[in-house]
Every structure is written in structure tokens, then in C-alpha cells.
């Protein structure tokens, strides 16, 4: 069948227009905005690098940046560990494993706000399920305030997000596990390898491309955390659980400091981009393709 050269573009046009109007143009636009002072109501005013200078000198920014790093350091290993463990569990050829795959995946397709509300109820200081269990079963007299204490709030948010998204990582790991040729494992077993050795020297290396992919998307997910923070702690107490994405939201849509928020967004982009680059460079050392 013959068709004009532009015909395929016609088909992807709706998608392309959406991408341009709602993503690419605003992304470019916000880069320009990051060099202005703009409160939405009055026209933007060019201020050069002032926003970047302000953020680098602001203790609040460094506190939030530190939170973002700590959040990633907690969230990424926990979600990957959970995801891999669940995948190994449901990969067993046991009765009901299909059912459990569905169960473990369920939180991921549940609205994050609903998940956060349920966890808020579980983690509440006075009437929360967890603290009541601690008081009644373990005799803890004054259980902690998981969401109200600056020492725990960030970890609580990271844990809830990991719990919610582990189902998705599980699915990815599961696909990876099922791609591994059983004969390799059998051969290793025949050569006398233990189950642990098979996992360590056959499964893990063959799974590494998937692990790499999961690592990258988990890092990006951790840097984008917004809804769960909004619903669980509102970034508090004080700024204890505020990460960069939430800080950007606060500055843009609560304080209407669009210029400053855009400069934060580009700083976050640099941060995530830099980390991803490092990962791609380090990949050669531990990722094995086929």
C-alpha cells in the first residue's frame, strides 16, 4: 500500500500535540521562568541567576535536599528488596501463587490517597492500630508519634510508598525471573551448587538488566514523591518530611513563587539526571546482558 510520507505523522499527531502542549513546551517554558520572579498575577520579571543563588544559600533548600537523598536511600533499597522477595515468593510453583500475585499488586493500583489515608489511620499516635498493638500487646507506655515526630516522619512516608509500589517492582522482577532459562539452574545444581549459590551466581546476574531498570525507575519515583507526602504529613512536622518535589509544589502552587519553584525543578532534574548518568556508567560493572 502506498501512502504519503507525512501520513504516519498524521496518526501520531494527537499524541504529539498533547506531548508538546502539556509536557515539552511547559518544560522549556519553565526553564525560562526559572530566571524570573513571577507570582502569576503580575508579569514575570527577569532576575538572572537570583533564584539559583537564593536556593543555594537557603538552609531550607539544603534541608529539603538532604531529606530527598535520605528518602531515596531508604525507599529504593526497601522497595527493591520487597519487590524482589515478593517476586521470588510468587514465582514458586505453589497453589495460590497467582492469587497472591494479584494481592501483592493490588496496592499499586489503589489510589495513593486512599492508601495514605489507611496508613494515616494505622500510624496515628493515639488511636492508631500500630500504637494500640504496641500498647496492648507489648506494654509500651508511650509509643512514638510516627507521623508527628520529625525523627520518624520521613521514614514513615518512605515505608508507606515502598509498601504501595512494591507490587509493581515485583511484577518487573517476576518477568525477569521467568525469563531465566531453567536449564542453567539445573546444570548448576547437577554440578553441586546449593540453592543459595544458584541464586547468587545464576539468578542474580541474569536478573541484573531488570534490576538495573527497577533501580532507575525507583530512583525517579523517589524523587517524584508528592501525593503520599501531601496526604500523610503535608511535608511536616516543620520540613522533616518535605522532599524536593513537594517543596516545588509548595513554592509554585501554595506560595505562587513560580520562578523559584522552576529553579528548584531544574535543580531536581540535574540531581536525578546526574544520578541516572552515574548509574549508566557503573552499569558495566554489574549488569550482564544475555
Amino acid at each position: 500500500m502506498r501512502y504519503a510520507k507525512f501520513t504516519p505523522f498524521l496518526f501520531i499527531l494527537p499524541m504529539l500535540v498533547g506531548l508538546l502542549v502539556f509536557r515539552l513546551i511547559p518544560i522549556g517554558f519553565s526553564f525560562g521562568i526559572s530566571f524570573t520572579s513571577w507570582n502569576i498575577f503580575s508579569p514575570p520579571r527577569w532576575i538572572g541567576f537570583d533564584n539559583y543563588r537564593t536556593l543555594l544559600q537557603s538552609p531550607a533548600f539544603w534541608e529539603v535536599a538532604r531529606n530527598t537523598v535520605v528518602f531515596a536511600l531508604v525507599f529504593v533499597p526497601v522497595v527493591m528488596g520487597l519487590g524482589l522477595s515478593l517476586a521470588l515468593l510468587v514465582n514458586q510453583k505453589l497453589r495460590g501463587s497467582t492469587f497472591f500475585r494479584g494481592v501483592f499488586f493490588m496496592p499499586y493500583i489503589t489510589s495513593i490517597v486512599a492508601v495514605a489515608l489507611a496508613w494515616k489511620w494505622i500510624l496515628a499516635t493515639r488511636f492508631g492500630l500500630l500504637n494500640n498493638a504496641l500498647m496492648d500487646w507489648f506494654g509500651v507506655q508511650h509509643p512514638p508519634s510516627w507521623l508527628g515526630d520529625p525523627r520518624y516522619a520521613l521514614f514513615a512516608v518512605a515505608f508507606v510508598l515502598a509498601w504501595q509500589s512494591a507490587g509493581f517492582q515485583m511484577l518487573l522482577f517476576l518477568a525477569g525471573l521467568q525469563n531465566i532459562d531453567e536449564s542453567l539452574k539445573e546444570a548448576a545444581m547437577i554440578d553441586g551448587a546449593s540453592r543459595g549459590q544458584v541464586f547468587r551466581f545464576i539468578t542474580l546476574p541474569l536478573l541484573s538488566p531488570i534490576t538495573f531498570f527497577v533501580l532507575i525507575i525507583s530512583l525517579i519515583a523517589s524523587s517524584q514523591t508528592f501525593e503520599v507526602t501531601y496526604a500523610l504529613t503535608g511535608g511536616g512536622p516543620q520540613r522533616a518530611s518535605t522532599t524536593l518535589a513537594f517543596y516545588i509544589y509548595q513554592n509554585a502552587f501554595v506560595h505562587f513563587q513560580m520562578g523559584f519553584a522552576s529553579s528548584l525543578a531544574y535543580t531536581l532534574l540535574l540531581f536525578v539526571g546526574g544520578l541516572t548518568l552515574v548509574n549508566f556508567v557503573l552499569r558495566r560493572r554489574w549488569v550482564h546482558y544475555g
Partner: protein
Amino acid sequence: MKRRPFIAMLVLVAMVLGLASAQTLRYFSWETNIPEETAALIAEFEAMHPGVSIDFEALPPDQYWPRMSAMAAANNLPDVFYMSSGFIFEWQANGLLANLQSYVDGIDLADYFSGVLATTRFPSPETGDVHAVPINWVGPVLYYNQDAFDEAGLAYPNDDWTWDDFLAAATALTVDKTGNGRIDQWGYWVYGRYAQVEPWIYQNGGRILNEARTRLEVDDAARETLQFLSDLVNVHEVAPRPQEMEGIRQQDVFPLGLAAMWVDGSWNISNNRSIIGDQFTWNIAMIPSGPSSETRIGYTWPDMLAIASGSEHEEIAWKFVEFMTGPGRPAETFLGGTVPFYRPTAESEAWLEPGLQPADKGVVLQLGGLPTRTSFTPNWSEWRGYGAAEGGGMNGELDLVFNGRKALDQAIETFVEYGNQVLSRSYPEP
């Protein structure tokens, strides 16, 4: 036969003229909870002004402000819209609100709680021009659990109560009912929120802003007040640490019976009624004056209606604003403790609701007769820590104090420095 085109043209001309004379006012509000009452008011206004129709939309507050800001940026504001005390300053400063002074000059303010007009004046709250008209106003009061007072054998709070009286009552009301070592009923409940802290400061004659309201300046009376509130939690232990109430909506602590006294805005009467029902008897009183207080101050602020500057229908928009804020608006449209701007409606039985709790609802009206003090500035919500930024600013710092994690002096130093950074965007150093 030849007449037909002529008639058609006449009809067309009449339609065009009709369209030209018909005016459609766009009206936005955040009051989503009284749809029938609002529709009835709008229908009444439309009947009074043939040819005028109102295009009405209501959005809950969290969606209202982002939407309004986007419309302001696109220069597409509704003709008439709700305005809050926390935001009016920025909107005035950016020239988004029509100057209504000449219209307001034409009404007899003796019938209104004119003190709350201060918030609507710009640039100066005393001498500036009015840029919005209050619909209603609110102010913090002291809520108390009458049954708990009876059980403890205490006299109810009255206008002469001092801080010592308050502390003595709070101490007696802090009870471990089950004897398990955990307090079941606290004497008081407070966290860093503006409506829970500022009223105490003002009733002690204190200020947190300088005279020109361009910088944060916490005076001695304000420090004394903050120390008193902090001591209630950390020294006398008659109020829980805010983190202990995490997971419970702050406005539910008192109605759930977890605290026997509480200071917050009068609008909470509505929430109290729905949660408490007839489980216990409660009432309201004036907030106790502090040792440094010379005169009673009313911390009151309005919700308002504003007209967009440059609205093509300013005249009729004003008539609508006048109608919606005046005698035409029935008491039933003012929920709980929000007080009508129009005094006779506020003083009517329909608003005072004898027979319903709280028995002394009229206490709220007393606030309207007092000299007013507020701390609203441009970017108030940012430095104060309010709404989606409640965890930060002054609120966040005070919570660190109430949670026993920071010394008060240090917290004051931090929130003053932060607040002044925020304010310097609107008022740069000379």
C-alpha cells in the same frame, strides 16, 4: 411574501438588542455547602433585575485558589468572587480588585459591623479605600466542656478570668480517667495555628508585626504569651503535645472530649455541633486577658465579596455584592459561628439560635464591637505556615516548641528571620 425577510430582520435586530441589554455576571464562591440557599438568593436577585443573569460556580477552597489564580493570570476573572483575609492583600497589591470606596460611601455603615472593613482597605487598613465587602466575619473564642467543669466542681469561664484562673481550671480538668497512666482528658488543646495562638497574644496586648506591618517583630507581651502557651504543654502538662494528637483532625480534639478547653475560630461551632450532638454540654466564652493587657482586642476577620478590576459590569456587580452582603441574605446561610456583616441579621433570633448549643452564642457578637487587630500581610500563609504549608513557618516552629524539641527563643528567632525574608519580597529593604 416580501414582508418575510423584513420581519426576520426585525426579529434579528430585536435579538441582538436584547442580547446587548442582557448582562451575565460570572460569580465564583468557595461555599459548596449551601447550594440551595445560594441558588435561591441568585434567583431572587435575577427576579429583581430583569435582563441580568448570574453564571454561578462554587469550588471547595483547596481548588478555589489555584483556579482563581490561574484565571487572574489569564486576565479572565469572574465579575464577582469570594475573597479571604489571608489573600486579599496580594490581590489588592496586584491591582486585581475594583476600588469600591465610592459605592460603600453610599451605604449606612451603622447597620454593619464596620470594624471588619479594616481588612478590606488598601493600602492602609485605617485610611485606605475599601476593595471588597464582607459577607460575614469570624473570630476565635474559648470553647469549654461544661459537663467536665461540673464534674471537676469548677465555675465556668467568665469575662474576668485571668491566665491563673485558666491554668488552675486546665490543671483540674487534666484527668487520667482509667488510671492506666495515660491522660484521657486534657485541660486544654493548642498547637501552632494562627487561630489558636494570635488571640492569646492580642488579649495580652502583644504584637508580632511592626507598626507598619512590613516586618515580623515579636514584642515582650507576645513573647510572654508564647511562653505561657508553651508552659501549658511542657511545664504544667495540662495540654498534650501536638504530635500526640497526630492522626486526629485538630478541630475534632475538643468535640471528641479529649480536651476540655480549646481556643479556635467561631466557625467551629458547626463542626462541634455535628460531632458532639447531645453527648455533652459545651459553651463558649471570651479568651482570658493576659497580665500585660490594657484593653480587650477583637481578633476578627471577614470573608468577602470582591469585584474584578476592569469588570465590564461593575455597576450591576456592585448591586449584586450589596444584595449578597446586606439585609437580603437570610441568617440560615451563615453556618455555625460565622457572623453576618449586616448587624440586624446577626442580632436576630434566627442567627442566635436560642435552644441550640452553645447557649452563649452571642459571645461571638461581642468580638465585633472591640478594637480589631490582625496579622495579615502579603504572603501571610507562607510565613505563618497555613493551609498546605501548615507544617512550616511560624506554625511549624511553634509546634517544635510545643513538642519539646526546640527552645522558644530559638524558635522565635528562626520564624522571625524566615518571615522577614518572605516579607522582604513585598517590602524590600530601603
